């Protein structure tokens, strides 16, 4: 390359604009891609992009090596060896699409559509088309990795307010970062927190660990034991109610179930809170006083840290109840309604995405997998709780899934994932679409090569009323195609009665944004996200005033939706249950699997050499005290034993971890912590796995 990769006519290097989709559409930061001779030679963050303002995280900066990862699949593949063995032969697109279309059609005849499941892992950009595809096909068994991510919090809000919510971080007086370490995840929030501090905003961080966020930004840092967030929230509520630091007028007018809730909270004294969470009673009082003195406060929405516990959804409700009783929902500086514009993101305007999916929903089809086991999930989501898929397949009965069509499936995202791998063996037919020949793809009969965001064009929305339609910055590698193009090829070949799906992605987007005063052509011509004309800021309080989307039209501390179904066996109040431990003597440690590290997201960056080099070996973080007591030094082999099995990691003793807790990152194929987590330990409300409060034993090996 030219010296220094300086863009310009002289070097022949051009900067083209794209988005990073290594992580969720909740980010999708703007990418400046340096391209020379049709190859990406470098990436940077796009300076004026509303999402990332020129920056990229540790993961996003690895986009070039991610794009050119050595195991990128370049042609459709057909399995030759045993499932999981990894022996494949290349086949043509025609043959692949023919085979899949025939199999999907014949399976529907033979077994019924409900025995075909559609699963989406990462990325997520195609999901609206994929869900409609499943609906057209006639199966409710559309499920995603959101069975373990984000949805638990969303469901908690659905019960409470009927809407997704967002923080008014720019205006609040107190920000509660509950399980938030934005230095390692959602990095743009650090700037917002720093700006808030400059104007006098206080920050309360609740995190069992010491992190750069707790050390640099927190005015107060509470360290509850893993999975005890609900008890902490209830104890704070106790102090708020006891001191009458609540908004009685707001409660009378907008809140349902306060008396029942207040009665329940009465037992959660600060002393009881200390006993349950390990947070000193005095700090619980201090946190309540901070909330009272601040007037307005908001709590960060959480995708995983709060949801990944047996009582995760209820813990989330208990936390959000603090906003309800102090009058901070739909109030300036509090939590504001954030109805999703597109891709589960609030951008300030409406699209027809929801309608696009729902108009093909197969209401009369048999209920989705997990509907019986997780009735609240089904009631609120109407699709498959994918954490029940393993049991469904292994049951081998007349409702078991026989055919699985997946986009970007990662079986290592599931608890006790070896059972899912075993279940793959029971399938009649399994298709996986992915960038890489992943461990999951190795179980598939047909593997199709997808392409990255840099090799395709796509519609994007961002908060603040922004929209964009990207163009590919390089040609797709090999014969790879975009996920949506693959769905369209199949829809056509199967002669689906769906003009939009058969017409393709762009036609679907045109349908979705038909009400906007802007066209695909205009969006595509833009160099980056542009403001959609006529988007006005949300009028705070308006949704509350006209009645929220719950059975009572009020913010429900006592959920009438749950109360209406005593057969579910779920509590209408945000009740607390401690993390489950069958035998505290045998398993004296709490294990948090999946705690964020800066250089990885699930499995997909473990095989990107630059990213892996920052932390080459899977480690277990543990307290200095425990390490000393057990005779463990830095780098020693440490055996982690759960009720399912044992694995040995390298020790990383650290002062940032509390005694009695250990932390391990997930997704390593050689040391896959999820493989020894109990697959039955699922939150009965959400179906989420208890990844972050499993019990285990720890010893030097």
């Amino acid at each position, binding site marked *: 390359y030219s010296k220094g990769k300086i863009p310009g006519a002289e070097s022949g290097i051009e900067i083209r604009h794209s988005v990073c989709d290594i992580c969720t559409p909740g980010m999708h930061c703007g990418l400046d891609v340096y391209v020379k001779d049709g190859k990406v030679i470098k*990436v940077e963050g796009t300076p004026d992009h509303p999402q990332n303002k020129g*920056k990229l995280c540790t993961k996003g*900066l690895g986009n070039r090596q991610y794009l050119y990862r050595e195991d990128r699949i370049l042609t459709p593949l057909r399995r030759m060896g045993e499932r999981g063995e990894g022996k494949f032969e290349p086949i043509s697109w025609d043959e692949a699409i023919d085979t899949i279309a025939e199999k999907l059609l014949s399976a529907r005849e033979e077994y019924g559509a409900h025995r075909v499941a559609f699963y989406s892992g990462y990325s997520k950009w195609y999901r609206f088309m994929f869900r409609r595809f499943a609906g057209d096909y006639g199966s409710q068994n559309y499920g995603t990795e959101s069975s373990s991510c984000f949805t638990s919090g969303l469901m908690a809000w659905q019960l409470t307010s009927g809407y997704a919510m967002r923080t008014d971080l720019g205006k609040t007086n107190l920000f509660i970062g509950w399980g938030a370490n934005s230095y390692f995840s959602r990095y743009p929030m650090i700037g917002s927190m720093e700006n808030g501090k400059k104007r006098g905003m206080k920050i309360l961080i609740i995190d069992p660990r010491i992190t750069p966020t707790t050390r640099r930004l927190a005015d107060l840092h509470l360290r509850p034991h893993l999975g005890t967030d609900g008890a902490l929230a209830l104890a704070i509520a106790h102090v708020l109610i006891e001191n009458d630091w609540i908004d009685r007028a707001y409660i009378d007018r907008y809140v349902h179930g306060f008396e029942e809730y207040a009665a329940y909270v009465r037992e959660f004294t600060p002393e009881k809170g200390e006993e349950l969470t390990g947070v000193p009673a005095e700090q619980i009082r201090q946190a309540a006083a901070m909330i009272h003195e601040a007037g307005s406060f908001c709590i960060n929405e959480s995708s995983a840290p709060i949801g990944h516990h047996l009582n995760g959804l209820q813990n989330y409700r208990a936390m959000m109840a603090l906003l309800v009783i102090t009058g901070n929902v739909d109030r300036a500086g509090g939590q504001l309604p954030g109805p999703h514009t597109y891709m589960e993101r609030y951008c300030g305007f409406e699209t027809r995405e929801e309608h696009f999916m729902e108009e093909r929903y197969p209401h009369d089809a048999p209920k989705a997998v997990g509907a019986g086991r997780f009735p609240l999930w089904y009631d609120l989501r109407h699709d498959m709780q994918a954490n029940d898929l393993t049991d469904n397949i292994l049951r081998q009965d007349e409702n078991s899934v026989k055919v699985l069509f997946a986009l970007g499936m990662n079986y290592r995202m599931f608890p006790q994932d070896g059972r899912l791998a075993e279940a793959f063996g029971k399938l009649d037919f399994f298709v996986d679409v992915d960038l890489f020949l992943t461990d999951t793809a190795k179980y598939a009969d047909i593997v199709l090569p997808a392409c990255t965001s840099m090799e395709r064009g796509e519609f994007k929305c961002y908060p603040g009323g922004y929209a964009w339609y990207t163009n590919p910055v390089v040609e797709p590698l090999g014969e790879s195609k975009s996920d949506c193009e693959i769905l369209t090829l199949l829809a056509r070949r199967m002669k689906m009665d769906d003009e939009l799906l058969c017409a393709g992605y762009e036609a679907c987007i045109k349908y979705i944004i038909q009400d906007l005063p802007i066209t695909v052509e205009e969006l595509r011509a833009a160099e980056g996200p542009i403001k959609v004309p006529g988007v006005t800021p949300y009028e705070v309080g308006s949704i509350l005033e006209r009645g929220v989307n719950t059975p009572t039209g009020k913010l429900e501390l006592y959920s009438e939706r749950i109360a209406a179904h005593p057969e579910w066996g779920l509590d209408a109040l945000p009740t607390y249950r401690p993390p489950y431990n069958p035998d505290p003597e045998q398993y004296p440690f709490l294990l948090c699997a999946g705690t964020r590290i800066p250089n990885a997201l699930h499995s997909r960056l473990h095989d990107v050499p630059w990213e892996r*080099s920052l932390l080459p070996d899977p480690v277990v973080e543990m307290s200095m005290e425990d390490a000393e007591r057990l005779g463990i030094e830095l780098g020693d082999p440490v055996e982690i034993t759960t009720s399912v099995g044992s694995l040995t990691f390298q020790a990383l003793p650290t002062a940032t971890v509390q005694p009695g807790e250990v932390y391990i990152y997930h997704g390593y194929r050689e040391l896959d912590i999820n493989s020894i987590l109990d697959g039955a330990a699922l939150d009965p409300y959400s179906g989420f796995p208890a990844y972050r409060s499993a019990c285990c034993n720890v010893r030097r090996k």
Partner: protein
Amino acid sequence: MAWKIELDISRCCACGACAIACMDQNDIDLSTGVRPYRTVFREETRRTGEIRYYSMACMHCDNAPCVTACPSGCLYKDPETGLTLYNTQYCIGCHSCAMACPFGAPTFGPDGKMRKCDGCIDRLRAGLEPACVRSCTFGALQLVKADEDPVPPEHSLVAQCRELAESQK
């Protein structure tokens, strides 16, 4: 204009974004055994419980020991930018620079020749920031004028390294 690459230690979290940006800029192929030019690490002091995060590469020392040690004229101080640069054409692979460097900056490629951070000299000359500075989300890595010290000494990696280099003389 003379420059230095400063790290405000109080803003660094060792996320490694700078290290990845550096590898992308410099086409680091780790499979050849070459070490990245920039490294991040977390340091905990057991006695005090203090935690510090660092991002380190060549410190571009004023009186660079590597330049003094280099017998072949490969390493030199650039009069214009003040950076410690090198011309591998002259490198004889003797590792004298590595022995002299207090910070472990020099690394060696499969060709046996030294390489290290050159401050993204070509980018600087084109009016662009070094890749690491450009990538730092938290304002920890900064490109600052050589004769200015915007970061207080207790948070300045340059100041601490200067002290360390002096103490080793």
